[in-house]
């Protein structure tokens, strides 16, 4: 065993012609699941191609388990990729493709067959693995793609939109599978647009926009670093004016939005004070509050803050 | 009036199990979610309704038009947005929308006018004259919506319309479709696997499974969960759990998430059953006793996702037993 699974990018810039797709990215993906997020055109796909050695950086270097992926083909034995597109060999079954690709790793026929079968069973294609892939539904193709990425037991897994086209039942299974892969200590990079599913898989994300990394860490860490953004708390109440009067008096509150008839939305720079004061007021003075909930703590809100306004 | 009405619809391909088996349903006005796992029969249903398949048993109609007899008229009044990344090869955004408008019966000039209007509406004003092949995934989805809208149809069939869109674009798209239904009288059938989106945009949903109708419900009936509350707090976790127990508030098994984000020592979340006249007060009191600060406390709304999984799970259990 060599070094722990990791992907490091050191000052990586990539341009095609005059198009700059990735701009001076330095980042590390360690063991466990990391979400790779960003709006369309943020440079995620290029980053994935750089990491998997399909592209070489224009400036800087990419290290995959401490070795540049383009240095020698054998590094690739440690990577599995689920590509975003849906490339299929017409007339070939998932089992055939998977075992063939395994044989490219130097496995003999028998080994390749048993590993391929195991991988296909793991992704839930046990029944369909001998049917031609072109007859698969989009969700089954997604599973087949996942199987070929897993079959050689790679340390680093790069999944580009792995849930695309899966039905809700399949999504649950694959989310669980990705979590399990991360828990096994692999370095799993998941690119996705569906934030609540990323949230289900991992709390650690790397956010890109305009070719640059704009934030990395857990959602809560990133949210805390966005200290210039006040926290917005929605307070459901039968008498908004009364709650508003109370909120205005709390230290750190910046604004109170009264536009709805059954709630107020409070923005505060010091959320802890607000929560403490509110608990006190509800218990002590009987402030009429039904429930309360910060609305911009989740990944969706963080994402929006970081990508809005040209980032 | 039912926008889409189907009764005793059965369609089988060859000798395999029927794709649709004696399905009767009505899709009403506004936005209706059409849900179901892969192979549930959604595409077959759409194809029957559009008259693309005619050898089915039973009847199907759209806006009162018979799917077998009036299929061309139905297609004139329906806009369809396919799931696949469909593009007319080698055309700019405007050209392809204009062209499809003509195919729906608009004159060339009217179609060109409408194409511009629809593309502006979906937010592609900057990319009107660029080739569709250069569009990003999100732009292609908008282009497909413009194509579906160009002939001003009364009914829109949208198949997985927001897949591949980034969150901001998805929000905009959901708002566009909601506005079409709310302000412009369009009826929308939204077929998707992304249940949270459906919950946000639809007024009702229909669930198909293995060629059968599994159930239908109105989104507004997904009432607030009543006595199940989601609580997030900071402070001593064990003391808080004890305090909850003392106040007779039952912690739902397996829902306690402590320190989910390594860095956030002391922050935890749980689902709690809270009965009584003053649920928030009870929770806050328990927290105060434990010295914990509640950051969030609200009754748990039932998620469409949970309902869906319950329905499909029950169906599986049913077939497994028989």
């Amino acid at each position, binding site marked *: 065993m060599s070094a722990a699974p990791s992907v490091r990018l050191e000052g990586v810039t990539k341009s095609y012609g005059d198009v700059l797709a990735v701009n001076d990215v330095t980042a590390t993906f360690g063991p466990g699941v990391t979400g790779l997020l960003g709006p369309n055109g943020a440079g995620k796909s290029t980053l994935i191609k750089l990491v998997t050695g399909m592209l070489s950086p224009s400036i800087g270097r990419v290290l995959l388990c401490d070795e540049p992926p383009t240095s020698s083909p054998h590094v690739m034995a440690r990577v599995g990729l689920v590509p975003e597109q849906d490339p299929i060999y017409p007339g070939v079954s998932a089992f055939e493709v998977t075992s063939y690709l395994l044989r490219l790793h130097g496995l003999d026929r028998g080994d390749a067959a048993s590993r391929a079968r195991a991988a296909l069973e793991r992704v839930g294609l046990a029944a369909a693995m001998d049917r031609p892939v072109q007859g698969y539904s989009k969700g089954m193709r997604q599973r087949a793609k996942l199987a070929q990425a897993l079959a050689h037991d790679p340390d680093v897994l790069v999944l580009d939109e792995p849930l695309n086209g899966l039905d809700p039942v399949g999504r649950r299974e694959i989310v669980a599978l990705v979590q399990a892969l991360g828990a096994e200590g692999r370095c799993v990079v998941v690119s996705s647009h569906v934030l609540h599913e990323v949230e289900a898989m991992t709390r650690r994300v790397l956010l890109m926009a305009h070719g640059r990394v704009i934030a990395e860490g857990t959602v809560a860490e990133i949210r805390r670093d966005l200290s210039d953004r006040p926290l917005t708390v929605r307070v459901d109440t039968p008498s908004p004016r009364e709650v508003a009067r109370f909120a205005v008096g709390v230290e750190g509150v910046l604004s109170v939005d009264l536009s709805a008839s059954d709630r107020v939305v409070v923005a505060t720079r010091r959320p802890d004070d607000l929560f403490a004061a509110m608990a006190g007021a509800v218990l002590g003075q009987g402030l009429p509050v039904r429930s309360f909930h910060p609305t911009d703590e989740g990944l969706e809100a963080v994402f929006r803050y970081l990508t809005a306004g040209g980032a | 009036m039912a926008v889409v009405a189907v009764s005793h619809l059965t369609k089988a391909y060859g000798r395999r199990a029927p794709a649709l088996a004696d399905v009767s349903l009505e899709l009403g006005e506004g936005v209706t979610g059409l849900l179901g796992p892969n192979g549930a029969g959604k595409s077959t249903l759409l194809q029957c309704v559009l008259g693309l398949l005619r050898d089915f048993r039973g009847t199907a109609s759209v806006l009162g038009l018979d799917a077998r007899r009036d299929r061309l*008229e139905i297609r004139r009044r329906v806009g*369809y947005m396919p799931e696949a990344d469909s*593009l*007319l090869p080698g055309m700019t955004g405007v050209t392809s929308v204009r062209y499809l408008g003509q195919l729906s019966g608009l004159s060339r000039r009217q179609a060109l*006018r409408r194409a511009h209007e629809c593309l502006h509406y979906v937010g592609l004003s900057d990319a009107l004259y660029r080739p569709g092949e250069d569009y990003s995934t999100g732009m292609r989805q908008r282009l497909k919506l413009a194509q579906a809208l160009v002939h001003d149809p009364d009914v829109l069939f949208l*198949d997985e319309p927001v897949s591949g869109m980034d969150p901001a674009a998805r929000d905009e798209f959901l708002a566009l479709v909601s506005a079409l239904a709310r*302000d412009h009288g369009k009826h929308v059938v939204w077929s998707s696997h992304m249940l949270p989106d459906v919950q946000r945009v639809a007024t009702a949903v229909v669930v198909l499974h293995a060629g059968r109708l599994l159930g239908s419900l109105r989104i507004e009936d997904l009432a607030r969960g009543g006595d199940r509350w989601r609580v997030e707090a900071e402070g001593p976790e064990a003391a808080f759990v004890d305090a909850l127990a003392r106040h007779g508030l039952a912690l739902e098994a397996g829902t306690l998430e402590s320190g989910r984000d390594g860095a956030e020592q002391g922050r935890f979340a749980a689902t709690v059953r809270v009965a009584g006249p003053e649920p928030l007060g009870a929770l806050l009191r328990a927290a105060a006793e434990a010295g914990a600060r509640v950051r969030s406390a609200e009754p748990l709304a039932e998620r469409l996702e949970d309902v869906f999984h319950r329905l499909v799970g029950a169906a599986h259990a049913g077939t497994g037993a028989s």
Partner: protein
Amino acid sequence: MTVHARGYRRHEGGTERPRLRFLPIVAEGYRAGTRGKAFRRLGLLFVVIVVFHGVMLYLDPAALFPRRMRGGLGQVTSDDLMRRVLAFFARSLAGLVPLVAMFVGAGSVADDLRSRALPLYLVRPVTPTDYWLGKVLAPAAVTATAYGVPFVALVAFGVLIRPSEEILPFAWRHLPSLGAVVLHVGVTALAYASVVVTLSTLVGRRIGTMVAFAGVVYGGEMLRLFSQTAPPDLAEPLRALSLGTDARVLLHEMLDVTLEHSGPQPAVTSAVAVLAACVLLGALVVVRRARSVEVTS
């Protein structure tokens, strides 16, 4: 009120209920086909060839007649010359015309299949037959333009080189020749376009279609040339497998001309039968494919 509604606006213009729903498909295909650089270059080549034929052949009739007739060239009338030039022109362009159909038509259905655009057509009030008609007539129209315009220009040139007092009667006498040319151009274009579109549907790739089409056209030509060695009852159908020759046989028949060194020629009936079969086969293949398309992926 000065603030106008900004959001969606309903369409008030109404829709037509056109009977010829394939026409927009033809128009769009025609526009796409004639806009390309390849078409313009090919057009230039055609102009060069027309000038060459116009000048060389009309002015040097000896080139057009077999050696044994050359002694008596004085007997050749201007009418004969005209018809021979036209027949000869058709033969000279025999290799280029299929290329036009190939470049314009190879992608027609294949590109739609690959970019999954077929459902976009079929969920509109467009039937599979409309789709087929549109997809066949577009490359046919482009080919007919590329082939027909120079051809008709050649007829005009042939008329204009007559002295002014002869010109009207001469033109009148050659109206049937013009008709024959137009019909020939139409049949050639339609046959090639049908074959290209059929192959485009079957192969499903633009490039593969080009290879297959080249094989069909070239193979047909080879079969025709080799048919001499075949037993007589087999020779006739073999000859008719060369589409270009079939269309030229019709032209020769209508112009009442025979050209030397053209190799074995099929009979008019088998030529017509093969040409018609190509078109019908195309209809069958494309319509079937369009019928079987699944609207969702």
